[in-house]
């Protein structure tokens, strides 16, 4: 059994060559799979996206990545705003190709942190990672977990249900007999419980 997950990168290019004026809009609203590049100086992989053209690069909390992804590549890009800062947190994890299954998980989290005027600033103690201060707030935003659960239960569960609605392994006549029996049983049981109460 071979199952294919479609990647829309080629289709994006096809639409753009037909209608070049759509280029900017399309690329900003469609997420492409994250690309990995190698930083030869440091000897580490990092991820490319639309946001890391300007802004500083910074290695994100690897604890989170390793606990949830057991590996993978992550990159964080931050830039200043007038009243705070914004950033994008990228995570890419490819399956190890074992058990004849290929897959890839890309996360793109875009965050904006607003610092209200007059709010106490985190104490600068010579540590260069002021951003650590905000870490618990960012970390607790559990969108990824919700999406992962949704993918597992709803999307995969639903497509499986649709497949089983197209064809039945069990003979349809047997299936409807079973349904009828089940309904009869339920009727009898509910009548009994009404009598008892």
């Amino acid at each position: 059994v071979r199952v294919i997950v479609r990647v829309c990168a080629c289709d994006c290019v096809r639409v753009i060559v037909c209608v070049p004026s759509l280029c900017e809009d399309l690329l900003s609203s469609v997420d492409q799979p994250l690309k990995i590049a190698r930083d030869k100086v440091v000897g580490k992989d990092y991820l490319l996206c639309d946001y890391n053209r300007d802004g500083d690069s910074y290695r994100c909390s690897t604890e989170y990545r390793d606990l949830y992804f057991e590996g993978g590549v992550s990159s964080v890009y931050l830039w200043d705003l007038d009243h705070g800062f914004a950033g994008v947190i990228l995570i890419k994890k490819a399956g190890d190709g074992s058990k004849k299954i290929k897959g890839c998980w890309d996360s793109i989290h875009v965050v904006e942190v607003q610092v209200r005027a007059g709010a106490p600033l985190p104490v600068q103690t010579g540590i260069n990672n002021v951003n650590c201060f905000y870490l618990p707030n960012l970390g607790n935003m559990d969108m990824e977990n919700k999406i992962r659960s949704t993918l597992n239960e709803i999307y995969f569960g639903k497509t499986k249900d649709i497949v089983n609605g197209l064809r039945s392994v069990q003979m349809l006549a047997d299936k409807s007999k079973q349904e009828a029996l089940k309904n009869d049983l339920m009727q009898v049981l509910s009548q009994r419980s009404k009598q008892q109460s």
Partner: protein
Amino acid sequence: MADFEEQLSDEEKVRIAANFIIHAPPGEFNEVFNDVRLLLNSDNLLREGAAQAFAQYNMDQFTPAKLDGSEDQVLITEHGDLGHGRFFDPRKKQSFKFDHLRKEASEPQSHEGEVALRPWRDACDEALRAYVKDHYPTGVCTVYGKTIDGQQTIIACIEGHQFQPKNFWNGRCRSEWKFTISQPTAQVVGVLKIQVHYYEDGNVQLVSHKDVQESLIISNEVQTAKEFVKIIENAENEYQTAITENYQTMSDTTFKALRRQLPVTRTKIDWNKILSYKIGKEMQNA
């Protein structure tokens, strides 16, 4: 960003449009057609240049067709293509014109098909119809008897679909089974395909196919048809069961390997702990 200075030629644009159309998920041909129409911005170009794509799509998808006054459906496939937009219905022994955009059949005419193969074709059709009724809530089948490269061949096509765009999903399964009756033992060759698209607040597609090969002993028409359909039933049951099991495996292993639901510690991360650990570490190193 690359600068597309040169305009693409009409021919190239039509080729791209046709490609999008051919890959439209089941039940979404009209949506893709309308979107592509906007991109191309020329109805003439689309209609003339992509006419082949419309026909190709229906033949690939095993689109069911119905003639007025009949409840029975016939599949549009390459095996029934008579040219000039006409298709063959081997069960009714007639040909008809098919409008690929409107998906409408018209102008029926009597058409014999290959007479020598008729008993085999009829026996297989009857056995297959009963099987399809038993397993496909909305299934349609068409069986052809054709001589191909000198070999007398039976080709069985099955299609079943559910389109529910209001619930943001569409699905279709197709299978094609062939064998030749020229030798005492035949090789049955089958291709099974499933495609499901679910797009409520997201976008998930299942696109799957499987190739099957089995041996079949050729005896008389009725017995052979019975064995043929048994092979089909077993293979299609096995395939469907494997897909269902695959979902469980995928959930338990691969998906987990990409992103776990909980960390290995089985508890959610305590971010404040990590923060104090990090600050502590940095203070040590400072």
